[in-house]
């Protein structure tokens, strides 16, 4: 098996891991968004609460959830390893650098963007994931069945304008991260062809705009509703 480690330890292999974990997280975003959008349904959180309960009790989803944490960690750890490697490759910086002439801002600042997203994820997990799982949470009854009222926790959180701002700004950061990351992952996998690369690039930009925008919409709408 040493060939596996050798391959994954090369610069190309580390990039491969970044791409694969990144693509998984992109898929996760879609699923997560589909669930969250139910917060906006005009049913006082009924669909959302039932959905959250179904997800939490499904063993398959639980495994995927653990994998998800693992992939976030891998993505972050490998980005640190790669960044340190790359710093060593250019120990002396240029006095004058006109990088804007040859590359986009987000492509050069994936590390900073990623760090901000990681901080956001920690805030997000503490605020919701931890509260849902271990916090004191109100219950509701639908058709004789009791459910955790996660909706109430979210609605209470988004009454706070500071919280809403953190969410909206973080989604903007995510948008920039995705605007490079989405298509970059395919390139790292070795997928670049004139037949499909223009499509992937457009899809990546579309994804980077639509998905974070819809995520950001939730706290904004819920804040407006609370007033």
């Amino acid at each position: 098996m040493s060939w596996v480690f050798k391959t994954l330890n090369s610069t190309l292999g580390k990039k491969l891991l970044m791409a694969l974990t990144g693509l998984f997280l992109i898929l996760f975003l879609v699923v997560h968004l589909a669930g969250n959008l139910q917060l906006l349904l005009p049913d006082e959180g009924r669909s959302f609460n039932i959905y959250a309960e179904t997800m939490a009790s499904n063993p398959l989803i639980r495994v995927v959830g653990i994998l998800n944490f693992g992939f976030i960690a891998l993505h972050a750890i490998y980005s640190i390893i790669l960044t340190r490697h790359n710093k060593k490759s250019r120990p002396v910086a240029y006095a004058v650098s006109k990088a804007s002439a040859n590359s986009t801002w987000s492509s050069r600042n994936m590390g900073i963007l990623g760090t901000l997203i990681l901080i956001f994820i920690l805030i997000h997990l503490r605020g919701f994931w931890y509260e849902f799982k271990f916090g004191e949470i109100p219950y509701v009854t639908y058709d004789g069945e009791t459910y955790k009222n996660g909706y109430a926790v979210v609605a209470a959180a988004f009454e706070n304008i500071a919280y809403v701002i953190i969410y909206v700004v973080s989604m903007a950061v995510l948008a920039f991260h995705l605007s490079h990351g989405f298509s970059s992952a395919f390139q790292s996998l070795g997928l670049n062809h004139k037949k499909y690369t223009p499509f992937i690039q457009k899809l990546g930009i579309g994804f980077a705009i639509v998905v974070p925008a819809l995520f950001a919409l939730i706290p904004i709408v819920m804040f407006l509703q609370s007033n």
Partner: protein
Amino acid sequence: MNLTLKVWRQKNPSEKGGFKTYKLSGISADMSFLEMLDVLNEDLSEKGEDPVHFDHDCREGICGMCSLYINGQPHGPHQTTTCQLHMRSFKDGDIITIEPWRASAFPIVKDLVVDRSSFDRIIQSGGFVSVNTGGVPDANEIPIPKVIADESFDSATCIGCGACVAACKNASAMLFVSAKISQLALLPQGKVEKRERAEKMVAQMDAEGFGACTNTGACSAECPKEIKLSNIARMNREYFSASLSTENI
């Protein structure tokens, strides 16, 4: 025109080095950038000072020897080699900062001269086709479709200048290495050894201490031969499929 040059001066690989400012006057817009430096060096020699060392050879954009990081871009503001850059791209009164390529795999020899033999070692590790001696093969014995020949030729136009490494924020050599891998992997003669080649050249690239690609595209945007990013994707493909299929466990 009159110019102010800020030039990186460094006596030897171990000395610290720093910028020195020089004033130049009477530079013609028709001069090439290297001719402008020749004028500077003539001035310096007359004054008994050590001239600025910089690499150059063909001065017609084919050898890849000229380097220089000019005002924050490799080979200056245009996508050419420095020898093909002309002073008409600058204005009277401009301040021009000239730095050497910066990469741990390209150590500075003196002033603006860097040692790019790491590229040579990458080529030596697999950038060739092994041919046994024998009779001369018939010219058209091996059919090669024109599109493939063209694509291979596009990759083969890489002159090994190192601007891709210089431009990359990670000092990654992937555009260079992928151009060399592609050029041979596309042709029937090169296909025979393509898997070992990919493994060996990537291993050597890593051993030389070049950075890892983050797909910013800066390399291709600055490459004087417009080597495409699709080469890097091909290298990734070749490398991953090689590692799944060669006999090296």
